[in-house]
């Protein structure tokens, strides 16, 4: 390199004075605009006209700027950037979710310090495969406008000091007088919290910790106490069982630990050409559930017959007798034939006698020690039904002077009447609820707990499995962890974080040997989210003495039930009512009935038609007749809905609805039926004799999937549409294209005259195994949260305008009385030959070279032609400004649709909008939207690989639905990757595309459902509403 200098002219070479001054200026000549301002008019080059021009311009500009109201957008930059936070990059923190009785080991995704999404913690030994819909939706409750922002006395806001002082004084007085203090809570699985409670007890020895679960598991707990001497629930291992019999236990949907069970259950039911084996599942049930619909054989019986079936199983398997019901007798023979320890009988009843029989049956089948083990019993359900009666009686009698409510809402969920009045008799009543509920309103004080995403905590879902919960955001409001509140009142140092560490150091650290040094242990555990230490003994000695009396008592219970029986059940979405103020879950269609935003009385469709309830058979209005359900003199009026698979003589109603004290009236939907629960011994029973009378009233029900009334033969092919395919295991063993035989012919006809695009690079493909999908809906909510999918509210759903990008279609086959059901997740099929793409006049939807069907929202003008031309009907139009995405402000509320959800549900509030994923555009009114295959996640995975200069590995790019799915039904990846899972699935013999015969060439394929049973049912989609 030479250091020659080049010069452009003499001036530069000589560095003359004039050159230097000019060279330093950006503009060589004076700017004429500036001169007119800076120079006096008389002396400058500018003249009168320039002045007038300037004046005119500036006045106009000022007028325009001043008259247009510019939106004020507050953005505050980091002054000191937090160490871990890089704007635009997501962080994941391991945590544990336990809310409303539902447990999940999770990763919390945060962006710029905000938790926005829940993912499964794949390292968990409990729920590694996925998450529940409720866990997904729980991020919204963090930003819920209904949260308490500070402590309250009655309706008055107070400070923590005031609360501590006033409550402290009252507590001391009560303690001094020897009055009892009730700490009433849901099941607590946090060992540190339990330790805090015992510390509190030592400060106030009159304290009683009363545990009550709104959806009761007392029966199973009491039965285990009777037969094993231990009040607990053993570990159920569905993965090991070859024959599974469920009796009214919805273990895939709501029972004990459904996310874990669904993963285990599905793992043993995956088939392919090499492995043509799967477990056999028989479900005996009254209320149709997803578990029953996934079963290989479903026996639909009345609630009383559920109990009789159990007695039959008992008499065949244990007592050596015979079965009254031949079908059940066959089930018993199958169980026996499975061999010792190869089966599992799960019973959902809350009747202690039923559970005693279940234990005896499992014991006789040798299942304890293999499919049922006592080494890691569940801590998830510990409540006792007696507790609630004790509390109400104690409060009324004045023995409980003070009552605290932790994580529970008994005023809403109590079957015992008069709790709200009884609370008023206490000298002190405090609710620790963090958002408004019935109990908080009834209590004198509200001392709001943090949201779980704001707190440190721990959990022990199963014995010896410990999880940590870490805060992912600084607390939003002036709330305080309940543990700190209790410690403070007990006069102990109130730092719960330190308390947990101390507890773990003393009680858990010593039980493991992997990490040396507590801090190494602690840091790693917080990072991983879980530690597993030695559990209990695997077996307990069984005492079957109670079984024979249990059988006769149970027979009497069953005989005592009348011809028409009602069974109350927990809905998969809103649970025991804890979630009924969460719009994401309210809008999640029930997998069985496809109804949102309501509870209703499920009846047999045959009975329904016979009794004149069929008032709107074409679903023109989605109108249903309202029936009056009476149980023990108490009655409730609800719409009556015919659901195939409900046995005649059975009525089923979900608890968890009809919350009255919620933030928005739109969330107060359905009716509260807890008051109708009956009692059997000490336990509440969800089965009762009932009457149902038709009223003159009708109601609109927000149902998302309706079948119409076409029953005249198969004309028009309504019954022979092959939208879903299924076969039986026997057929599949013989032929791995069973059920899918027609595909070869369809593929042969897939010819085109046109040039086919080469697709190098990635080729994103999704395969959905219908055999694994249980329809639970976790994917739907995960998709909503990930993609900012608007919630539209009941009125809009009635108008068939739900916005879900991913829905689960439900198809019935077989008879109306006891159909088979196939759940089919339906999302944009990303067709390679997409009908939507060529009809858009402005090319707003187009195809990427990676096979994605893309939407350019900014370009969309909203002709809706693409949605019309989509054979899968997966495109969703923004009828209103559902999320305040454009300049039009809140105008919908006054239009002719009154109940657009976003306004009432707060999606226009800056607080609630914090839940939005910043990677996904919030769509404005008038544009079309649809599934994008989570393109933002694909891009970030690709970028990550690119930064590390490597090829993207299989399984790195995931979609939100895929990671949420506990059964692994959704397989996603790059089909051009020779080693990818999705290519394997894509080339499986069970694979088919939905209506691919119209040559859409979808990039989403489905795998045939296989049922493990002898008989082959001819495939037909039935219409169920019209049998006359």
């Amino acid at each position, binding site marked *: 390199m030479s250091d020659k200098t080049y010069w452009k002219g003499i001036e530069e070479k000589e560095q003359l004075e004039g050159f230097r001054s000019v060279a330093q200026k950006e503009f060589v000549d004076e700017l004429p605009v500036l001169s007119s301002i800076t120079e006096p008019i008389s002396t400058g080059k500018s003249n009168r006209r320039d002045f007038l021009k300037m004046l005119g311009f500036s006045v106009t500009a000022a007028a325009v700027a001043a008259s247009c109201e510019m939106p004020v957008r507050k953005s505050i930059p980091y002054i000191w950037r937090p160490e871990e936070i890089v704007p635009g990059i997501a962080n994941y923190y391991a945590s544990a979710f336990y809310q409303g009785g539902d447990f999940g080991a999770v990763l919390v995704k945060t962006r710029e310090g905000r938790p926005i999404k829940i993912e499964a913690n794949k390292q968990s030994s409990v729920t590694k495969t996925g998450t529940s819909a409720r866990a997904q939706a729980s991020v919204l409750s963090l930003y819920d406008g209904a949260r308490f922002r500070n402590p309250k006395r009655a309706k008055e806001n107070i400070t923590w000091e005031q609360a501590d002082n006033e409550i402290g004084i009252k507590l001391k007085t009560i303690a001094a007088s020897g009055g009892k203090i009730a700490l009433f809570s849901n099941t607590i699985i946090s060992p540190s919290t339990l330790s805090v409670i015992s510390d509190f007890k030592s400060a106030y020895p009159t304290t009683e910790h009363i545990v009550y679960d709104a959806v009761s598991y007392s029966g199973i707990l009491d039965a285990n106490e009777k037969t094993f001497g231990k009040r607990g629930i053993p570990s159920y291992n569905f993965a090991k069982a070859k024959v599974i019999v469920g009796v009214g236990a919805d273990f895939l949907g709501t029972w004990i630990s459904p996310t874990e069970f669904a993963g285990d259950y599905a793992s043993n039911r995956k088939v392919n050409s090499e492995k043509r084996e799967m477990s056999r599942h028989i479900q005996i049930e009254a209320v149709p559930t997803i578990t029953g619909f996934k079963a290989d054989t479903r026996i639909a019986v009345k609630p009383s017959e559920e109990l009789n079936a159990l007695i039959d199983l008992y008499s065949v398997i244990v007592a050596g007798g015979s079965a009254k019901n031949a079908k059940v007798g066959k089930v018993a023979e199958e169980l026996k034939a499975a061999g010792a320890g190869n089966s599992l009988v799960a019973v959902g009843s809350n009747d202690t006698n039923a559970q005693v029989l279940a234990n005896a049956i499992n014991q006789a089948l040798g299942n304890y020690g293999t499919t049922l083990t006592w080494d890691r019993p569940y801590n998830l359900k510990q409540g006792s039904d007696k507790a609630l009666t004790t509390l109400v009686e104690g409060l009324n009698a004045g023995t409980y002077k003070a009552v605290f409510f932790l994580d529970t809402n008994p005023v809403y969920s109590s079957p015992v009447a008069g709790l709200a009045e009884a609370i008023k008799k206490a000298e002190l009543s405090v609710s620790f609820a963090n958002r408004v509920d019935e109990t908080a309103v009834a209590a004198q004080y509200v001392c709001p707990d943090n949201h779980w995403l704001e707190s440190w905590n721990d959990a022990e879902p199963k014995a010896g499995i410990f999880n940590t919960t870490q805060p992912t955001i600084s607390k939003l409001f002036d709330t305080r962890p309940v543990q700190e509140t209790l410690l403070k009142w007990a006069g102990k140092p109130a730092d719960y974080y330190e308390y947990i560490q101390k507890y773990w150091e003393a009680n858990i650290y010593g039980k493991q040997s992997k990490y040396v040094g507590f801090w190494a242990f602690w840091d790693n555990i917080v990072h991983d989210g879980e530690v597993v230490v030695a559990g209990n003994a695997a077996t307990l000695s069984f005492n079957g003495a109670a079984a024979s009396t249990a059988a006769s008592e149970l027979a009497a219970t069953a005989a005592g039930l009348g011809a028409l029986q009602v069974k109350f059940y927990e809905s998969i979405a809103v649970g025991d009512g804890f979630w009924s103020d969460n719009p994401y879950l309210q809008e999640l269609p029930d997998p069985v009935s496809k109804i949102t935003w309501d509870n209703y009385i499920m009846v047999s469709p045959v009975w329904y038609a016979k009794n004149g309830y069929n008032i709107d058979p074409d679903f023109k209005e989605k109108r249903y007749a309202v029936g009056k359900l009476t149980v023990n003199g108490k009655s409730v009026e609800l719409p009556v809905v015919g659901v195939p698979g409900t046995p005649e003589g059975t009525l089923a109603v979900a608890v968890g609805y009809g919350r009255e004290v919620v933030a928005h009236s739109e969330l107060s939907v359905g009716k509260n039926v807890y008051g109708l629960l009956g009692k059997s011994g000490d336990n509440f029973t969800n089965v009762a004799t009932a009457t149902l009378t038709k009223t003159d009233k009708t109601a609109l029900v927000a149902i998302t999937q309706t079948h119409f009334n076409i029953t005249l033969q198969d004309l028009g092919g309504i019954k022979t549409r092959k*939208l879903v395919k299924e076969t039986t295991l026997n057929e599949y063993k013989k032929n791995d294209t069973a059920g899918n035989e027609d595909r070869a012919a369809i593929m042969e006809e897939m010819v085109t005259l046109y040039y086919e695009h080469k697709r190098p690079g990635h080729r994103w493909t999704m395969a959905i195994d219908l055999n694994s999908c249980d329809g639970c809906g976790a994917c739907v909510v995960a998709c909503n949260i990930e993609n900012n999918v608007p919630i539209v509210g009941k009125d809009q759903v009635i108008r068939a305008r739900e916005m879900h990008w991913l829905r689960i279609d439900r198809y019935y086959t077989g008879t109306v009385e006891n159909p088979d059901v196939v759940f089919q997740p339906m999302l944009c099929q990303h067709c390679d030959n997409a009908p939507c793409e060529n009809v858009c006049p402005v090319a707003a939807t187009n195809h990427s070279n990676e096979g994605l069907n893309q939407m350019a929202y900014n370009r969309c003008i909203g002709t809706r032609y693409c949605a019309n031309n989509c054979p899968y009907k997966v495109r969703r139009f923004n009828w209103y400004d559902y999320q305040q995405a454009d300049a039009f402000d809140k105008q919908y509320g006054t*239009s002719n649709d009154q109940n657009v959800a976003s306004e009432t549900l707060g999606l226009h509030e800056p607080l609630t909008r914090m839940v939005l994923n910043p990677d996904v555009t919030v769509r404005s009114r008038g544009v079309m939207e649809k599934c994008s295959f989570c393109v933002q996640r694909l891009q970030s995975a690709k970028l990550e690989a690119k930064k590390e200069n490597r090829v993207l590995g299989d399984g790195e790019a995931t979609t939100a639905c895929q990671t949420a799915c506990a059964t692994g039904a959704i397989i996603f990846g790059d089909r051009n990757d020779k080693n990818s899972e999705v290519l394997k699935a894509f080339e499986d013999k069970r694979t088919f595309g939905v209506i691919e015969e119209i040559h859409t060439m979808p990039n989403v394929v489905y795998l045939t459902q296989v049922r493990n049973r002898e008989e082959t049912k001819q495939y037909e989609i039935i219409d169920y509403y019209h049998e006359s």
Partner: protein
Amino acid sequence: MHAYESEFREPLINGLDKTYTKITDDLVAPTERNSTMWWIMVLLTGAGSLFFVFCLAWTVWFGIGTWGLNKTIGWAWDITNFVWWIGIGHAGTLISAILLLFRQRYRTGINRAAEAMTIFAVICAGMFPIFHMGRVWDAPFIFPIPNTRGPLWVNFNSPLLWDVFAISTYFSVSLLFWYSGLMPDFATIRDRSKGKLRKKLYNIASFGWQGSAKQWQRFESLSLILAGLSTPLVLSVHTIVSFDFATSVIPGWHTTIFPPYFVAGAIFSGFAMVETLMLIVRKLFNLEDYITVNHIESMNKIIVLTGSIVGIAYLTELFIAWYSGALYEQFAFYNRILGKYLWAYFIMMFCNVVSPQFYWFKSMRRNLWVTFILSIFVNIGMWFERFVIIVTSLADDYLVSSWAYFSPTWVDLGIYLGSISVFLFLFLLFSRFFPVIAIAEVKAIFRTSSEAAKAERAKAEGATHGGFVLRGAMDKYSK
């Protein structure tokens, strides 16, 4: 230069007292007198038009959600109205272009009003594709104009884009044709005007028409050229509109029969609307001599022809659905007839296929009350035809899980009725300020086809029946 016309042929201008002056007086009269009835109707339809604007504003302000549409049914009354209006707009061009080329003299009595009707119907039709957009403020995206977004081009594969071209072309040519025909007549009104302003305005409107031989020669040439240009448009516009459906994959839409079927349907509904309007206009403005029963009968013949074509098309669809063996296609038509929208299908069938069959009888063809009622029936039927095609096909397509039902809201109704008001309002303005019958063209056939001329000729030839009386002559002939 006048061609000889048989005396047995029914005259196109009735009245033995007719002279050129009388024709001018008769036809210009509506523009020269005030009418209370006219004012009442203008105020009524004006109010209706304002309600139309209100409903559109409501839609734009609140969103398309104010309509009854849903996730499954993305088009309903909006596109139904669009196709309906476009169909109505078909008769004008057909009458002015194709009948001109075929030298059908009877067109002269009705072509002006029919063309006006076309223009107004197309204006109404055009509203719907614009305002059915979710983001109407971005409507300019549909024009292939150079831009800074790439440039980002429109999608030439989309039938909606073809619509944009087809309809704007059709509108421009129709407007030109209509207006060029108006020029000599504006000059006639101008020449009779007393007020200075009126004279000036009509002079401007007539582009200073002087009536010189050169001008007439150019006028005739222009008419023929425009007629030649519009003839393919008569076929192309509705063909392209039908492509909106025919090129899709939805059973019930995806049908190759659509282009001829839509064109026949359009002519059918267009003539019906011409009749509805003409029957009122001839009565209100005393134009019975110029729009004769003969005219009405000719149009009724076209209605029975096109109505039957449409009927055959319906049956062909059903046959093909059965014959194809295609699962979804069969269901679409099965559902159309027996599904939840069967009432709409049967209204359509009755109005479009059954009701025009009355016109096989001459007495029915010539009965004005029957004609008026049936013309309304046909318009109702054709609206339902589009509704049936659009809504029933969308409501129940491939995936049973997504089936839905459409119910209109008051906004849907308001926009539809509002568009009819706009149409009538514009037509009333037209009838008051423009000559509703092409004066110059009527005069051109006076010598050949008028009753007066025929009578005169008969007299000159020494006819025994002493002047031409049609009915008597016809009766004699037939005996």
